[in-house]
């Protein structure tokens, strides 16, 4: 089967990306050795936490799920000209709206889940729309407005969780979703939930949208060259709006999926999850390509799951070290991009 040209153009970037990942891993292993951890034990723990055991697989894919969806949200935004740093806030607003309705109703699952999904996506989309409107009508850079909206979303969730939605005063958490509001479990022994199947489907749909529809073409054109897009009769503001709504909607959807799949309710700790920010690294590593995000999120999921395993016995590697790996990953992938650009002087 002959690869279409667009695909074979992948191979180079893919190889480079893999190289970046390997480099970061090697550096981390080096760090572990230097700080006195037993390398073999660490590797064994990492393997157990990822591909080596059943619960490893479960942990890996479950951790990847929210990153995949938020990664898609960020990737599509960046690719199409909107620097949406607000995936975190959009995620939270989506989860919040779904929680508010989810803990006060009970419907059969076939109706309940779509309703919650819809609410989550709507919440995230509207949250992004605020920034979009500010950009289109007042020229406020969305880089700023989305970050600020993140803070507001965090406070909103904290308020809800200690106020109107608090299940028992003093606990700072909401009630849990009824059983019909939860995603079906794929594997009882692990956390593996149905969202793990939904996410790649979303990625595939997004790919089709971006590369096979006229709307996608316009969005990409606006993302690369808004001036030329204008001369080609494409509306820049309409497409920026579309992009932000889609991006926010995806992030909000990510929030609901995580809610109905794993969290079942919100707590103070929900505001610390940080998926929306990690998503930026996920998206960059995937070079902003929807299908690449699948692999990238998987990788970050493996990282999270494997490192969690390493934090247990017998190795007890601290979480901070994992943050180091993540940081290295970002530095290397961005740094590589910079090096690549400066060598590609035509």
């Amino acid at each position, binding site marked *: 089967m002959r690869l279409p040209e*667009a695909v074979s153009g992948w191979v180079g970037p893919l190889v480079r990306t893999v190289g970046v990942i390997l480099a970061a891993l090697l550096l981390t292993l080096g760090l572990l050795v230097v700080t006195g951890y037993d390398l073999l034990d660490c590797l064994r723990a990492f393997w157990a936490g990822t591909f080596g055991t059943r619960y490893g697989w479960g942990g890996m894919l479950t951790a990847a799920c929210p990153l995949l969806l938020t990664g898609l949200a960020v990737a599509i935004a960046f690719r199409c000209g909107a620097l949406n740093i607000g995936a975190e806030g959009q995620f939270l607003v989506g989860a919040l709206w779904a929680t508010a309705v989810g803990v006060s109703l009970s419907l059969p699952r076939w109706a309940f889940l779509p309703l919650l999904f819809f609410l989550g996506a709507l919440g995230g989309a509207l949250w992004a729309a605020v920034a979009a409107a500010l950009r289109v009508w007042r020229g406020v850079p969305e880089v700023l407005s989305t970050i600020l909206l993140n803070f507001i979303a965090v406070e909103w969730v904290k308020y809800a969780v200690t106020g109107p939605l608090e299940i028992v005063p003093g606990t700072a958490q909401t009630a849990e979703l009824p059983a019909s509001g939860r995603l079906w479990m794929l594997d009882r022994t692990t956390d593996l939930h149905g969202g793990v199947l939904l996410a790649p489907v979303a990625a595939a749909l997004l790919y089709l949208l971006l590369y*096979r*529809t*006229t709307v996608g073409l316009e969005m990409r054109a606006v993302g*690369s*060259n808004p001036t*030329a897009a204008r001369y080609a*009769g494409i509306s820049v503001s309409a497409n920026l709006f579309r992009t932000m709504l889609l991006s926010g909607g995806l992030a909000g959807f990510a929030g609901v999926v995580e809610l109905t799949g794993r969290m079942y309710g919100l707590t103070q700790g929900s505001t610390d999850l940080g998926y929306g920010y990690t998503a930026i690294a996920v998206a960059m590593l995937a070079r902003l390509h929807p299908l690449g995000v699948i692999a990238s999120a998987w990788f970050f999921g493996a990282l999270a799951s494997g490192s969690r395993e390493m934090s247990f016995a017998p190795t007890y590697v601290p979480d901070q070290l994992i943050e180091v790996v993540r940081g290295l990953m970002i530095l290397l992938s961005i740094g590589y991009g910079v090096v690549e650009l400066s060598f590609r002087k035509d």
Partner: protein
Amino acid sequence: MPLLEMRDISKRFGSVQALEGVSLELEAGEIHALLGENGAGKTTLMNILYGLIRPDTGEVFLEGRPVRFRSPQDALRARIGMVHQHFMLVPPLTVAENVWLGDRKRYPFLFRRRDAVEATRRLVERFGLKVDPERRIEELSVGVQQRVEILKCLARDARILILDEPTAVLTPQEVEELGAVLRGLRNEGRSVIFISHKLKEVLELCDRVTVLRAGRNVGTLPIQEVTEKRLSEMMVGRELEPPPPRARVSDQAPVVLELKRLSVRDDRGAMAVRELSLKVRAGEIFGIAGIDGNGQAELLDALAGVRSPFEGSVRLAGEEIGTTSARQRAALGLAVITDDRQRKGLVLELPVAENLILKRHRSAPFARGGWLLREEIARYAEEKRRQYDIRAASLWVPAKTLSGGNQQKVVVAREMDLLGQALVAMNPTRGLDVGATEFVHRTLLEARSRGAAILLISTELDEVLLLSDRVGVLHRGRLFFVPPERTNRVEIGRLMLGEGEAA
């Protein structure tokens, strides 16, 4: 003995032989032009001289002694300076700072501003370059900025100056001034290598010319022995087509494009186009000449549908389109070739095939129900590739991988296919070599013979004279019609400078 000799230089990049056995000689006290199409190897050769690239074979001799430059520092130390096409100046800093900053020999620790200003003033006087050392770069016109670049070379006492496309951004006035500066340098015994496409200026300013074609030296001749025609033929390798006859368009031909008292504001709110009225008939090319910056860009924007006119009307076949969108105008058959293919004409990150269908991407045959019909697009793109001989690794690679000439072919192919009745083209051959320029001109003339009304806006006077049936000059937003008996370089040149009014 020549001052500089590059002997038998070859360089290969991957599968492309950029230079093959090229030799070049430069005497002291000469202005030597290096001519060639894009891809002929001029820039590669100069990059080798300037130490940016190492040659595969061949040697460079300076005053008879072999030299090897490993970096521009080496070249600079050997008193070779280069002024690039895109200036390397720091806009917020002053002239003196730009000239001397980084000169660790002169200012190893502290930068002594007054000393630098003085030193710059001395250079200015010595070489007659008329620059104020204390002005900031961002306040200066392009022509003056170029003089600063030259000053940088002279500050290091360069005896060989390489100028890459120096006249591309200059007004005719500034070109003359540059010529005076270069002659002054030459008379002092310094030498200049002048890389250019502009044959007329090469003939006016240079002493000898070397033509490169496809990586080989096709000939070095003294200026007295060549004509423009001969040089073009050497660059392209074949005889060029004769210039087209002027069309005699009768007054009975229908008026396709009509502008009535069109006024357009620029980005700063000033009136860039003032009450411009003109009519273009079917089967004619109306050329608007003028120096860049007199309202051409705003006029193009207004016609393309990207900028709302302040006042006045634009009619296409009798229909008012002044307030319609770019998309609507494309649907009505108004083709637009902008002056900036990379910024306005193409989305470089998108594949060639997608660029070819822009403006028509929402409708049949390329899309249906919101979905892009990939096979149709691929088929169409392949057809255009053959028709226009577009050289690209694949039609699905990003357009940015194409050369300038091929990128312009994509734009032209696209616009020709949506062309219904009228075409507006601005500087359609900017940055293109002789072969590509000829191609674009031919395409415009074909469109004319098929009955299209063409408005050609060009800052290249020769292009306007070559192609237009009727000519006007744009000066400070106003259009001055040039009657046939006054249609020559001298008269039009005067109008471009704002002297006198056309009858």
